[in-house]
C-alpha cells in the first residue's frame, strides 16, 4: 500500500501537476482576472500575487513536508484569495461578472479540492493496527442496470441547479440562489442514491399498496398545490 503513496521528494510530475493546475486555473479565472482589471485596488493585486506564490511554493513541499505543503497550498492560498475578494468589493458584483467565467471558475475550485484531496501522507487506512488485512472483499451483489441512469440523471440535475443559480443577478438573491441550488443538488443526489440502490435490492420493500398509501396525503397536498398554481396562472 505504501508504494501507492511514495513519501519522498520524488513525487511524480503528474501528482504535482494535479495539485498545481486546478488551483492555477481557479486562481486565474476568479482571482487574477478581477484583481488585475481596471479600477481594482493595488492591495488586491498584491494579495492575488501572494496567493499564486504560496500555491507554487507549496509544490516544493508536497513530496516531503506534507503538513507545510497543505498549510501553504490550502490555508494560505485560500486565505489570500479571500482577502483579495474582500479587497475587490464591488468589482465582484454579479452584475459585472461574466457568467461563463464564473461557472468555469467554480469548476476549477472543485478540481482544486479534488487535487488536494488526493494528496495525503504515508498513513493510509490499511496501515492502521486495527485494520483487517487480507484479500479484498467483494460486493455481495451488483448494481441493477437501472441504477446508473438514475444516478447519472441526478448528477445532471445537480449540475443544472448549479448553472441556474448563475442566472440570478441580484446580489442578495444570488447568494440565496447558490445556497438553494446547493441544497437542492444535495437532496436530489441523496434521494437518487436511495432510489438507485433500491432497484433490485435484497431488502424487500413494502407492498405497492402500502407504498402508495404512504404518499397519499402528500399526493393530495401536491394536487392542491397544483390546483392553486393552475388557478393562479389562469388569473394572471
Amino acid at each position, binding site marked *: 500500500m505504501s508504494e501507492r503513496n511514495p513519501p519522498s521528494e520524488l513525487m511524480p510530475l503528474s501528482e504535482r501537476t494535479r495539485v498545481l493546475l486546478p488551483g492555477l486555473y481557479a486562481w486565474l479565472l476568479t482571482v487574477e482576472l478581477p484583481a488585475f482589471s481596471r479600477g481594482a485596488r493595488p492591495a488586491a493585486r498584491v494579495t492575488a500575487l501572494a496567493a499564486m506564490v504560496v500555491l507554487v511554493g507549496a509544490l516544493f513541499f508536497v513530496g516531503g513536508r506534507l503538513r507545510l505543503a497543505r498549510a501553504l497550498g490550502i490555508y494560505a492560498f485560500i486565505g489570500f484569495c479571500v482577502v483579495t475578494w474582500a479587497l475587490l468589493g464591488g468589482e465582484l458584483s454579479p452584475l459585472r461578472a461574466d457568467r461563463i467565467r464564473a461557472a468555469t471558475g467554480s469548476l476549477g475550485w472543485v478540481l482544486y479540492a479534488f487535487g488536494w484531496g488526493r494528496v495525503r501522507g504515508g498513513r493510509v487506512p490499511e496501515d492502521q493496527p486495527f485494520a483487517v488485512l487480507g484479500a479484498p472483499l467483494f460486493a455481495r451483489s451488483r448494481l441493477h442496470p437501472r441504477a446508473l441512469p438514475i444516478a447519472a440523471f441526478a448528477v445532471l440535475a445537480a449540475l443544472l441547479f448549479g448553472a441556474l443559480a448563475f442566472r440570478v443577478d441580484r446580489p442578495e438573491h444570488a447568494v440565496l440562489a447558490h445556497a438553494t441550488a446547493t441544497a437542492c443538488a444535495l437532496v436530489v443526489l441523496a434521494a437518487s442514491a436511495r432510489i438507485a440502490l433500491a432497484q433490485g435490492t435484497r431488502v424487500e420493500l413494502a407492498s*405497492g399498496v402500502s407504498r402508495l398509501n404512504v404518499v397519499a396525503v402528500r399526493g393530495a397536498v*401536491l394536487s392542491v*398545490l397544483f390546483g392553486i398554481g393552475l388557478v393562479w396562472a389562469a388569473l394572471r
Partner: protein
Amino acid sequence: MSERAFMSRVANAVNVLLFLAACAAFALGLYALGDRRDLQAIYWLIVGGIALKSTTDMLRPRSSGR
C-alpha cells in the same frame, strides 16, 4: 401478472415520476428566481421539497411485523 406485482410496478412508476417532478420543480424554482419571480420560485421549491420527501418515503423497507 398478479395484482401484487402490478401494484408494485405502479408504486415504482409513481416513485420515479415523483423524483422527476421534484427535479423539475427545483429547476423551475431556480429558473423563476433568475427571472425575479420570487413568489413562483418559493412555490416551485415547496412543490419540489414535498415531491422529493414523498419519493424517499416510498422506499421504506417492509416492516418486520407484517
